């Protein structure tokens, strides 16, 4: 069923009796051509593009819980393509372009809102670094703009411009950046994939992999064995757990990152703002809550909840940037598990096992990458060659010294 304005009117006149569930709840078949492990944003996008762009069939997505219950529903919904390095920026700009056409493409309202993002700077050196980054963005076809202090003041007059430690001197802006309703991304991809025949199998945890003579034959799950010609793993947060079934160790540590939302407030922040020096970033949701976060907790964790010291640290960051935030009450806070890769960049690659493919290591930047990650992973699964924007995201870059160290800190908590 396609959604449209006409459909809403037609349903309104007939008592809304025609709406159907957005996707089926099928039982797993004995075998598929493609199994995607992980029904998060990246896994669902992979299945969607496999079916739609690469015309593949017999695809299943296996999810241990319910779709959208992991990091795709836990992030702070920011999309942007403001990276510096060659290995990253074309990929994230490709993702940005897919975001721009996403809602028409999968016929679902994902509330893509290009409200703009600014990164504040506080010193001459930081300004120069952001100028360089902006130039790199422009040369890769993205948009970037350096804002003066007065331009920032016009946008957000309430900021603490004369902070003694980090006075605000200006900002790097990307006007095309913004926010997207993250649950709707999972639902839209799930519905789009389901309409094209993909089986989305929830409450189905992968417990093992059947590998013979260096080739993957299928996965053992909590709902029985399912055969597959190709298995793609996209379970960021749990990557090490799932790939251990194939005997692999990864260049990844799992860390917890917390996020916060305040009570609903009147319109205050119309874009997204990052304050790297203070380990704080913030935007305002359409419901009015200030959505903000800071650093990872800084130790290995699979707990999906963080500890109080980081709550204090994030609150201090918020207070030093916009002191009025101290009057807002915190409504909710939660944690998600990040694949912290050793250089801070992701992996989309084949493994040494035939038919087994891996997508992970997204650190805390996976949400903005969702469409391009799905597209590039589907490309790799269907054609066995990496997508042109994702050639650098290889396993062997660590052994070869070809790290994509955007910030040079990776999983090392003491460097954050």
């Amino acid at each position, binding site marked *: 069923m396609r959604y449209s304005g006409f459909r809403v009117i037609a349903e309104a006149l007939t008592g809304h009796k025609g709406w159907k569930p957005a996707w089926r709840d099928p039982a797993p078949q004995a075998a598929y051509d493609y199994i995607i492990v992980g029904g998060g944003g990246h896994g669902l996008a992979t299945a969607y593009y496999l079916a739609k762009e690469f015309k593949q069939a017999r695809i299943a997505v296996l999810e241990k819980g319910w779709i959208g219950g992991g990091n795709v529903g836990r992030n702070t919904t920011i999309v942007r393509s403001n990276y510096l390095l060659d290995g990253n920026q074309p990929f994230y700009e490709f993702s940005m372009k897919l975001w721009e056409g996403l809602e028409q493409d999968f016929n679902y309202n994902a509330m893509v809102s290009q409200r703009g993002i600014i990164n504040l700077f506080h010193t001459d050196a930081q300004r120069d670094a952001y100028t360089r980054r902006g130039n790199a963005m422009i040369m890769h076809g993205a948009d970037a703009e350096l804002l003066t202090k007065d331009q920032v003041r016009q946008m957000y007059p309430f900021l603490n411009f004369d902070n003694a430690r980090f006075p605000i001197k200006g900002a790097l802006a990307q006007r095309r950046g913004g926010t997207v309703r993250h649950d709707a991304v999972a639902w839209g991809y799930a519905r789009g994939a389901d309409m094209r025949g993909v089986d989305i199998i929830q409450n189905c945890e992968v417990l093992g992999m059947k590998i013979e003579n260096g080739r993957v034959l299928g996965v053992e799950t909590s709902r029985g064995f399912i055969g597959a010609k190709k298995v793609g793993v996209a379970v960021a947060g*749990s990557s*090490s*757990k799932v790939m251990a079934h194939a005997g692999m*160790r*990864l*260049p*990844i*540590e*799992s860390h917890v990152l917390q996020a916060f939302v305040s009570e609903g407030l009147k319109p205050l922040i119309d874009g997204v703002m990052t304050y790297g020096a203070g380990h704080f970033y913030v935007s305002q949701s359409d419901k009015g809550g200030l959505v903000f976060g800071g650093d990872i907790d*800084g*130790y*290995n*964790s*699979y*707990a999906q909840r963080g*500890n109080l*010291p980081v709550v204090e640290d994030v609150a201090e960051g918020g207070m030093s940037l916009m002191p009025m935030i101290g009057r807002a009450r915190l409504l909710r806070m939660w944690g998600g598990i990040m694949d912290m890769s*050793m250089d801070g960049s992701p992996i989309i690659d084949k493994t040494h096992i035939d038919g087994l493919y891996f997508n992970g290591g997204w650190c805390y930047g996976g949400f903005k990458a969702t469409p391009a990650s799905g597209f590039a992973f589907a490309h790799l699964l269907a054609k066995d060659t990496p997508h042109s924007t994702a050639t650098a995201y290889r396993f062997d870059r*660590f*052994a070869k010294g070809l790290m994509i160290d955007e910030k040079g800190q990776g*999983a*090392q*908590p*003491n460097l954050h």
Partner: protein
Amino acid sequence: MIINHPLLGPRDSQEFVYLGDAALIRRPDGMADGALDKFIDYTYLRDNPAGQHRELWYHEQGDRSWLVVTRNTVSHEITAVELARDVARTEGRSK
């Protein structure tokens, strides 16, 4: 989290800096055959278990000792704390 320091008693984890898996104590021999591959493993690959994890914490705002803390990465429960010095010596380092 409270880390029960073997010398100083219970201390807030805020006083510590975290490094990672305690396997980092076992630095490969750089002169041995196949040292390059061993160092790639040592530097980049991790077990990253969900459950019991032995890990290195540095008491930066205390006595600056390195500790090996055994902690559950699912519940954050700490079950053992040893001096990294003792662990390394038991494994035959720095005799």
